[in-house]
């Protein structure tokens, strides 16, 4: 028996191919069954996200299976270029790869946490499809445990990784729960849209939109469920809203210090957070000197994001060290398992009668192996 991994990721393939190979949850049992029949896999877990599609399978140890797995994964689409972008790993290398994926070390944004949930989900689905066994149970529980450990023991997932997520984090540091906060968007643009989406996901109370072109404001208001106000009455938006997002293409300042100062008089001391992602800038820089007013421009935000990404990169080595340790631990157990060494196996998580893992203890943490 051999543990094999075949897959592709954002590192090896463009988004079109990842999309093409992605396995919807509904199709999963079919694929698992097919892999079992063609490649003789006794255990299979499929990890399919927007950044990667990977098949982890325990198969007979012969030269054919790798090729069969490649064909299964790519369906009828397998051509030369696609074949080149698929990677195949075995045993320890496959283990290390999964551990790195779960730790967020193989992600586009180092240390991001979504992938850990996706690994968990993939494992759950495989369990439900009845395609896990001793090896994949121990492997995936270990990967999930390690993914958590890496994020608490290192600073790899600390700090903002994008301008929109930083904008939301800062807004939360000023207002706390954003569900009572109002957002005022001035101008449109891809970055503004991303930031609005991020803020909307925090269920803000209200959204105001103004644009030099009235129709655009209307369209954006419709899209995000807000209301449009005339561009000339933007000063009123400053009174009503708590978070102001500026991204007009105007050549000059559209919000002056005076505008904000006058709005503050009517805000009764409530904090005002202005995010100016326009270039050239939309908001007079001296606005930041006003009381209870916080102004961040695109440079402020981007330098903070860059800083936090650098800090994350500094933690990679530490995280890799943890991955190495756990890979070696697993490898030792894996060999013992292959050899049927019951003394070492005793420390493995207990299994229930049907072979599925009963070891998923509190919080998904498995105490084995030490």
């Amino acid at each position, binding site marked *: 028996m051999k543990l094999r991994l075949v897959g592709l990721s954002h590192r090896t393939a463009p988004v079109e191919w990842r999309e093409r190979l992605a396995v919807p949850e509904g199709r999963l049992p079919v694929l698992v069954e097919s892999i079992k029949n063609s490649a003789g896999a006794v255990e299979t877990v499929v990890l399919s996200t927007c950044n990667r599609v990977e098949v982890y399978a325990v198969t007979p140890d012969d030269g054919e299976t790798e090729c069969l797995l490649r064909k299964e994964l790519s369906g009828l689409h397998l051509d030369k270029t696609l074949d080149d972008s698929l990677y195949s790993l075995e045993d320890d290398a496959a283990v290390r790869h999964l551990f790195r994926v779960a730790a967020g070390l193989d992600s586009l944004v180092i240390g991001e946490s979504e992938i850990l949930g996706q690994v968990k989900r993939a494992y759950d689905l495989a369990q439900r499809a009845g395609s896990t066994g001793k090896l994949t149970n121990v492997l995936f529980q270990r990967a999930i445990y390690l993914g958590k450990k890496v994020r608490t023991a290192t600073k790899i997932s*600390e700090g903002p990784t994008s301008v929109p997520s930083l904008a939301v984090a800062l807004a939360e*540091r000023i207002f706390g729960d954003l569900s009572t906060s109002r957002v005022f968007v001035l101008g449109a643009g891809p970055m503004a849209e991303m930031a609005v989406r991020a803020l909307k996901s925090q269920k803000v109370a209200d959204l105001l939109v103004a644009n030099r072109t009235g129709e655009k404001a209307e369209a954006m208001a419709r899209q995000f469920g807000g209301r449009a106000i005339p561009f000339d009455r933007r000063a009123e938006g400053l009174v009503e809203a708590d978070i102001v997002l500026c991204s007009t293409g105007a050549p000059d300042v559209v919000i002056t210090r005076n505008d904000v100062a006058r709005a503050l008089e009517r805000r009764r001391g409530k904090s005002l957070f202005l995010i100016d992602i326009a270039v050239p800038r939309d908001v007079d820089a001296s606005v930041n000197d006003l009381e209870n007013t916080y102004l961040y421009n695109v440079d402020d935000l981007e330098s903070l994001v860059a800083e936090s990404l650098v800090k994350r990169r500094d933690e990679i080595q530490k995280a890799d060290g943890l991955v190495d340790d756990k890979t070696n631990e697993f490898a030792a157990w894996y060999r013992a398992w292959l050899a049927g060494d019951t003394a070492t196996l005793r420390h493995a998580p207990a299994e229930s009668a049907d072979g599925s893992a009963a070891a998923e203890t509190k919080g998904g943490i498995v105490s084995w192996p030490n």
Partner: protein
Amino acid sequence: MQRWEALLFDFGYLGYAAALVLAVVYALTRRDDLMALGHRLLVGAALLHSASLAVGLWAESHRPGHVGYAFWSQWFASLSLFALLIVLIYLFAQHRAPVSILGVFVLPLAVFLLTLALTQAFLASPRCPFASVEDFLKIADATRRQPDIAPTFWTAVHVPLIFLAYAAFANAFGIGLAYLIGERQIKSHRPTELGYRLPALEVMDRLIAHIVLIGFPALTVGLALGAGGARAAGGPGWAGDPKVLWSLVMWGVYLSYIVLRYVVGWRGRRTAYLSLAGFGVVLFTYVGVSFFSRMHGFLQSGGALP
């Protein structure tokens, strides 16, 4: 009795100190389990500490010729009560802003006050500090004289109420400090990870205001009862007493806080500074003035009323 009072006090003190250490470690490591443990420790310590004060109060009120409520008039017991109330109001604040590092800003005050109390005990009976508490309580009981003015019930309520106000203002001070640090970080575009563990600025701003709204009525009623009690007892010229004078200054500071915050619309940094200034007056009134006041000069007489 003194043995129990001292034991409960000692364990309460250790609990607070441990909770403070955990709060600091939590701020540095972001380990939520430590935060939860610290909270439980704090609640436990507050219970032990309350029990210690209850035992002391009970013993005092059963001593022939003494009335229980003169208990608070001693320096040791007043520090102890002050610290307990700080912790209780902090627990209220923590309830409003859970999982935050506010403890780092508030708990040092409580621990400091109890350390002062311990120091007094240690100076009176220099054994190990914890054994000293029992000795000290015995000595204090043996040497304590009844105050010149027999305390009435109203003057007795006056003291805990004033300390409730002081404790609220101490919390407002600690949170005000945290606010100013958080505000500076965001304003200067240098938010740190540590800052992310503070409650949101608006949350802290409201919390300070609400805590002042607890403290101010307590102070008002406390002062009125003190004044009324002194008049009823026909005591010496309390109006000229520096402590009374400074208490009025304090009352003015917090009244202006409330008016500026709720009527004029001041918020944020300015009111945070006001909460800092107010607590400065509290400290001066509590400690500084005691050296000059005949009526409230707890320090001159080593722990007993003059």
